[in-house]
């Protein structure tokens, strides 16, 4: 099978899966089987594509030309392949997790949930494999729209309000800023293709480059740079599997992935360096990553804390790109994968705690480690990885980013990175410490959900196996990424090598 056909498959499988899920809506077991089969198939296609990419192929597909000169085109480079692999693998895990979570919590409208999930994955694939800015934009918007029903899953006043914030910010920034940026790029460069070394170079003055970079960076609202990060905490009203896969992996990573692609393939890091346009971006990313960590400290709701932690970690990737060196881009690319595994583990744990004990606030979580030892151990691993400490994979990506910052002489940024790691530890470790060492809370201050109140027994009270196994798997994944980070580096190497005329 040719690369083009495989790409078409990767796009069509989730679509077909969504259709079948809708058809199988009345029979939950069949429906969930379809979901898992679709996820497995999608991952298999991604693996097959990745083998080709490792061999140095560039699978490509052109479909149609909706606007003159700009086709809908797909073309896979290493970073996109990595993103596709991570997203499709984690979809399998999340599918199992969703079954446990959705059933245990008696959620309504599950058919719509699974169907939209599949569609969102299709949109993610489109973003990951897109060969030009227009295709990226299409996938990006499709991702916003397909995740909207998931965010508003509960259909109550609160989720409708959150849905408004979500849609308003994501759709608003993309239409008002990203689209003009793309059209302007087309006017300047005469092409929207992603090319090594960039396409804008030599077509515009430094001032225009600066303006354009601003439009892109704030237009890509999914990257959640402050002050347009509000949608991410708002999206936490969704069921936890959605927060786990979409708002820790697919959606937010689509954001930073597009940021990296724009920096690398549209501007080119040489242009970013020579025009000096990157410096304000470094500033904003640094501010975001510190501020978001501080805000995370103040959040008592576990999912809200995780959301702000995500905002902070996304800023790492943007920062990595803005530094515009090969180390930086490598670190940013790796951080997409590292943070994905770490954060999904954390969200899985949050969901497991909610399912088993109906606790959502950090202050209620005293002593839960004794009831849920596996979950809390996984939580520890995930937290270490996100904070960038061994044995979590995040260690390496943060190392490279720090190296890039030091290499370019941004000592304040290095300081900020250190500070942020400290803050990470400060907002994660109390949770772990409390879970293991604090006395068990008498009764949950605010019991959530219609399920029976948790028993007061001191014994084991883990979430269903469907929840427990996925979160253990992703935790193991974090450790595996720590051990095999070198392979990841090799995988991304072709992209890094073509980056710049200058050496590392």
């Amino acid at each position, binding site marked *: 099978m040719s690369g083009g056909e495989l790409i078409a498959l990767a796009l069509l499988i989730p679509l077909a899966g969504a259709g079948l899920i809708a058809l199988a809506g009345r029979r939950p077991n069949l429906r969930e089987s379809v979901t898992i089969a679709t996820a497995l198939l999608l991952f298999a296609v991604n693996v097959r594509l990745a083998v080709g990419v490792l061999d140095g192929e560039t699978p490509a597909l052109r479909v*149609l030309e909706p*606007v003159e000169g700009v086709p809908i085109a797909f073309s896979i480079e290493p970073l996109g392949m990595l993103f596709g692999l991570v997203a499709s693998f984690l979809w399998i895990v999340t599918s199992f997790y969703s079954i446990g979570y959705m059933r245990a919590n008696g959620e309504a409208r599950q058919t719509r949930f699974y169907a939209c999930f599949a569609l969102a994955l299709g949109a993610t694939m489109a973003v990951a494999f897109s060969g030009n800015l*227009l295709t990226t*934009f299409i996938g990006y918007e499709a991702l916003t729209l397909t995740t909207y029903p998931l965010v508003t899953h509960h259909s109550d006043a609160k989720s409708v309000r959150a849905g408004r914030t979500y849609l308003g910010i994501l759709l*608003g920034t993309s239409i*008002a800023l990203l689209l003009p940026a793309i059209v302007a790029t087309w*006017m300047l460069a005469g092409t929207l293709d992603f090319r090594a070394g960039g396409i804008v170079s030599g077509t515009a003055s430094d001032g225009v480059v600066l303006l354009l970079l601003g439009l892109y960076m704030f237009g890509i609202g999914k990257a959640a740079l402050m002050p347009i990060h509000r949608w991410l905490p708002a999206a936490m009203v969704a069921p936890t599997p959605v927060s786990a896969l979409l708002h820790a992996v697919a959606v937010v990573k689509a954001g930073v992935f597009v940021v990296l692609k724009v920096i690398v393939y549209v501007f080119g890091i040489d242009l970013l360096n020579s025009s000096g346009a990157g410096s304000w971006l470094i500033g904003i990313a640094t501010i975001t990553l510190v501020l978001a960590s501080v805000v995370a400290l103040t959040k008592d709701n576990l999912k809200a804390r995780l959301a702000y932690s995500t905002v902070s970690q996304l800023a790492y990737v943007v920062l990595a790109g803005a530094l515009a060196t090969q180390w930086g881009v490598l670190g940013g690319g790796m951080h997409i994968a590292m943070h994905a595994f770490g954060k999904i583990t954390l969200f899985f744990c949050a969901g497991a705690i909610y399912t088993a004990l109906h606790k959502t606030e950090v202050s209620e979580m005293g002593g839960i480690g004794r009831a849920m030892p596996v979950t809390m151990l996984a939580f520890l691993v995930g937290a270490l990885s996100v904070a960038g400490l061994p044995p979590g994979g995040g260690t390496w990506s943060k190392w490279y980013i720090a190296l890039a910052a030091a290499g370019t002489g941004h000592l304040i940024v290095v300081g900020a990175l250190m500070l942020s790691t400290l803050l990470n530890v400060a907002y994660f470790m109390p949770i772990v410490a409390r879970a293991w060492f604090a006395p068990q809370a008498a009764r949950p201050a605010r019991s959530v959900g219609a399920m029976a109140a948790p028993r007061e027994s001191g014994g084991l009270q883990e979430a269903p196996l469907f929840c427990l196994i996925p979160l253990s798997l992703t935790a193991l994944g974090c450790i595996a990424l720590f051990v095999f980070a070198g392979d990841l580096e090799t995988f991304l190497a072709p992209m890094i090598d073509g980056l710049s005329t200058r050496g590392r």
Partner: protein
Amino acid sequence: MGEHLPILQVILPLIAAPVCLLVRHGAVCWLIATLVSWLCLAIAVLLLMQALDGGTIRYQLGSWVAPWGIEYVVDRLNGFILVIVAAVGAVVAPYALRSVAEELPERQIGLFYVLYLLCLSGLLGITITGDAFNVFVFLEISSLSSYALISMGRHRKALHAAYQYLVMGTIGATFFLIGVGLLYLMTGTLNMADLAEQLKPLAGSRIVLAAFGFIVVGMGLKLAVFPLHLWLPNAYAHAPSAVSVFLAGTATKVSLYVVLRFIFTVFGFEFSFAGQPFGPALLILAIAGIVVCSLVAIYQDDVKRLLAWSSVAQIGYMLLGLSFATALGLQAGLLHIFNHAIMKAGLFLAMGCVFLRLGSCRLEAIAGVGRQMPWTMAGFLLCGLSLIGVPLTAGFVSKWYLVLAALEKGWWPVAALIVLTSLLAVVYVWKVVEAAWFREPPGTAGRVGEAPLVMLVPLWIVVAANIWFGFETSGSVDVAKAAALALMGAVE
């Protein structure tokens, strides 16, 4: 047969109308109207293809040679418009069966189709004719029939809306008549091509300028250019659903065509844009219309009214493209005529389905309807996304070219305005979406079922068109480009 297509285009519905009047039987009239609409579409497509291949078609009525006789002319521009009008007609006619049977008293149903056919004939006539006075005649045929159609709305407000439209429309048509009279005074001819020739040496004349003013203002009234739009929201909101669809998809578009035809073919690009601040004036009106009417649309609580205000705003986008006075801008404007016709027709079609089941389109009445009429509201959502300009829909392609045209001129603020105002569209479309899906149905209403198939199929044809023309744009963009180049080329 083939060479008589231009006259058949107009005369078929014109003859079918009195036939329906004689028959009077609702179902038979419906059958006639539907068949005639489909034939008209076939003819329009054939004419457009001929015009695209072999250039302009000229048809002398009764073999009286132009400029003395009346001449029908089909070139790329009006071939394109003919297809839009006929296509909307072809979709509305089958849709009307159930919608009209529900909304109109039994004895008026036959008459409805008489008026519908007359209106169709008038709109096609305006588009196809090459004679300035003939435009006026067809304009009045379509206008008079549409006043009567609007007055058939169920609520008494429809009567008032029709009356207001009648007064405004007649003033507009009379202004147009004055303009044509002045042109005749100066040139002694009414044939558009001949007028264009005769007017060339008269570029400095104040009378020609006055004629220009009268014609543009007169058609501006029919076209509902801000601030001459006040008749439109009431008319669209209270007309029977099928009429709202038909008029929203055709009437303003045809008026815009007449403006284009006079500006470019008759007066000439030089006269219109270089000789006077027409472009800037149009730009200001277009922007004001877009901003003000989008904002007003947000505060409507009747969905049909909301869509009507949005129509006025969307007309602003078409005029915006025109006001750039470049080939690309004109292309964007023409493209938006087509794309807006399909998206707004789709939205009104969906609301017609809702009205059929609920008897109202108010936001509180449609609460929760998304679950009860999933297909209808899914169609509404997709057309709404097209209106917003989400990629892979027709609306996106319009927005793309509009922004591109603005940037080509170097007008950054205008480009920014185009994208910012589409956010206003997000707000008003989402108001409806939230009401339909996230609000509980009002306690008094029982469950309602999905709309009948005969209404759903036209709706989904239009929805499919919205998606199709977002992907495969050779049918819309290329034709709009050819028409725009022909218009610009004719004058340079």
